[in-house]
């Protein structure tokens, strides 16, 4: 056996990818540092409610309760063997060290080997009224239910596309909330075309069919091929006006749960110096990685949705595979049959993912239809018109230039909520594809630090 590394390996994120990575490293006799922003492990899909909440896992995770329980137990079992840091935000990567903020203080933690598994957030595009109280992301609406036992309104309308759209609507209805409808931006034809591909994973396909069938059977209106027109209501949502086949309709509701699939959380990989590539399927820039999860930077690995959206099962496999790669790179013996099997299964899930993208395509016509006065940036309220003007004037041929000129992507969210829209609007104005306008660069802190930065005492790790 080789010597233990100078620094313990670090895993960022305690979701499906991070937990399986940690488990694999512990099994090899290492003591990884697991840093997670959340108060409890589980990540997004298997997010645990705060201590003292009582719903059983079956109620929280439905068909996925068994997997949730297995993942929660896996982490509980290795807790004594990991240095687990919950409620800790990694806000910078620089000179082979992480800056980690916890309880208003920050420390610098050096690393030699780093697995990044920070997951994803909802992908959104702007539409008139989308900043009105009562419009929440789809994932956020699920967080309210799973993590807080709340519905985001008393009559909730679901808008967007992707498997989560139907899942969360179903979870709301099951929990006793009123679902005003499900408005899918993708068309029926998209879904029909994708059926053969989705049958690669019959269990997942069957669950999707079940949710849609259940919603319809319970009288929930489900429409496809929808585009939003505007939210009605000044200080809170009163209705959504939407369009289908050229005809406008209005649905009264007091909340809208909205999402167009997910976008990978890539800022940390960017700050770590990883090379990126444009992924046509995610319609986003993602870190380059090998099948094992190695990035272009030695000692830095990516796993799970942050490396490209692939779902929770794939995240578990990718986490384990990345940890095996890390062990290989430390010169430790690893089970190569296991590694090959994981890669094979990951390739299969990528093929299924492709079918999902066909079934729930990104609405490429949406951005062009956003009126000039609609804010694209929620943080600083930069409008679509401002972006179009900068592009038309020929001053911004690239997204970071657009950012410098208009401040889009410069606000507190660092482009998480406006980045996709800014790229779409710029590329449309320039008559190119979103891959041709470059990518927004990550900047520290990747999320604003609590209190003010001045209060933070930055101290070196012992």
């Amino acid at each position, binding site marked *: 056996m080789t010597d233990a590394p100078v620094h313990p390996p670090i895993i960022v994120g305690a979701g499906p990818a991070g937990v399986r990575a940690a488990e694999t490293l512990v099994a090899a006799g290492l003591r990884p540092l697991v840093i997670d922003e959340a108060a409890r492990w589980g990540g997004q899909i298997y997010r645990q409610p705060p*201590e003292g909440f009582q719903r059983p896992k079956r109620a929280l995770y439905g068909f996925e309760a068994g997997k949730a329980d297995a993942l929660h137990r896996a982490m509980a079992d290795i807790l004594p063997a990991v240095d687990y840091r919950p409620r800790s935000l990694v806000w910078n990567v620089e000179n082979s060290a992480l800056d980690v903020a916890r309880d208003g203080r920050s420390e610098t933690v050096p690393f030699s080997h780093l697995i990044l598994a920070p997951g994803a957030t909802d992908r959104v595009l702007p539409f008139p009224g989308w900043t009105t109280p009562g419009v929440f992301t789809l*994932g956020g609406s699920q967080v309210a239910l799973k993590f807080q036992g709340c519905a985001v309104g008393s009559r909730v309308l679901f808008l967007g596309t992707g498997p989560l759209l139907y899942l969360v609507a179903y979870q709301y209805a099951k929990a006793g909330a009123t679902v005003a409808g499900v408005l899918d931006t993708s068309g029926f034809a998209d879904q029909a075309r994708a059926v053969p591909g989705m049958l690669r994973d019959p269990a997942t396909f069957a669950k999707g069919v079940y949710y849609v069938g259940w919603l319809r059977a319970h009288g929930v209106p489900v429409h496809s091929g929808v585009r939003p027109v505007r939210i009605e209501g000044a200080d809170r949502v009163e209705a959504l006006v939407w369009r289908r086949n050229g005809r406008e309709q209005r649905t009264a509701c007091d909340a809208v749960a909205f999402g167009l699939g997910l976008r990978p959380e890539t800022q940390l990989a960017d700050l770590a110096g990883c090379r990126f590539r444009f992924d046509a399927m995610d319609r986003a820039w993602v870190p380059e990685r090998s099948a094992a999860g190695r990035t272009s930077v030695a000692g830095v690995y990516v796993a799970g949705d942050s490396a490209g959206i692939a779902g929770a099962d794939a995240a578990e496999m990718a986490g384990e595979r990345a940890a095996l790669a890390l062990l290989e790179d430390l010169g430790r013996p690893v089970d190569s049959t296991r590694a090959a099997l994981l890669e094979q299964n990951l390739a299969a899930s990528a093929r299924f993912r492709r079918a999902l993208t066909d079934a729930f395509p990104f609405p490429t016509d949406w951005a062009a239809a956003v009126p000039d006065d609609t804010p694209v940036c929620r943080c600083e309220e930069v409008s679509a018109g401002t972006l179009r003007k900068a592009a038309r004037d020929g001053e911004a041929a690239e997204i970071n230039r657009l950012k410098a000129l208009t401040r889009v992507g410069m606000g507190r969210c660092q482009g998480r909520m406006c980045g996709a829209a800014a790229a779409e609007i710029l590329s449309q104005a320039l008559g190119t594809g979103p891959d041709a306008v470059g990518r927004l660069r990550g900047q520290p802190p990747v999320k604003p630090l609590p209190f003010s930065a001045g209060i933070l005492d930055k101290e070196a790790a012992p």
Partner: protein
Amino acid sequence: MPLLQRVAETSRRAVPFVLDGRPCEALEGDTILTALLTNGEQLRRSEFSGQPRAGFCLMGACQDCWVRLEDGRRLRACSNFIEPGMHVVTGAQPGAQP
């Protein structure tokens, strides 16, 4: 009517707090966002347009939910828990604008 509706987990212990000077009740384990939006309709006003905001992502990504405590601290409402006796200022009431 409050924005958020409780549909489960209602037998938790009550947590008293103060919202724009008004005594309110939340439940133990509520985030500040849940505490505020089960008692009201918004978290803050945009410093640009003055329009009300009530959070968006609920997972620490959008930064829409920053609130101010009376002691001057600023917190992300979706990712911090309510504590007994907290005084939160949303600017919803005229004159309470930060």
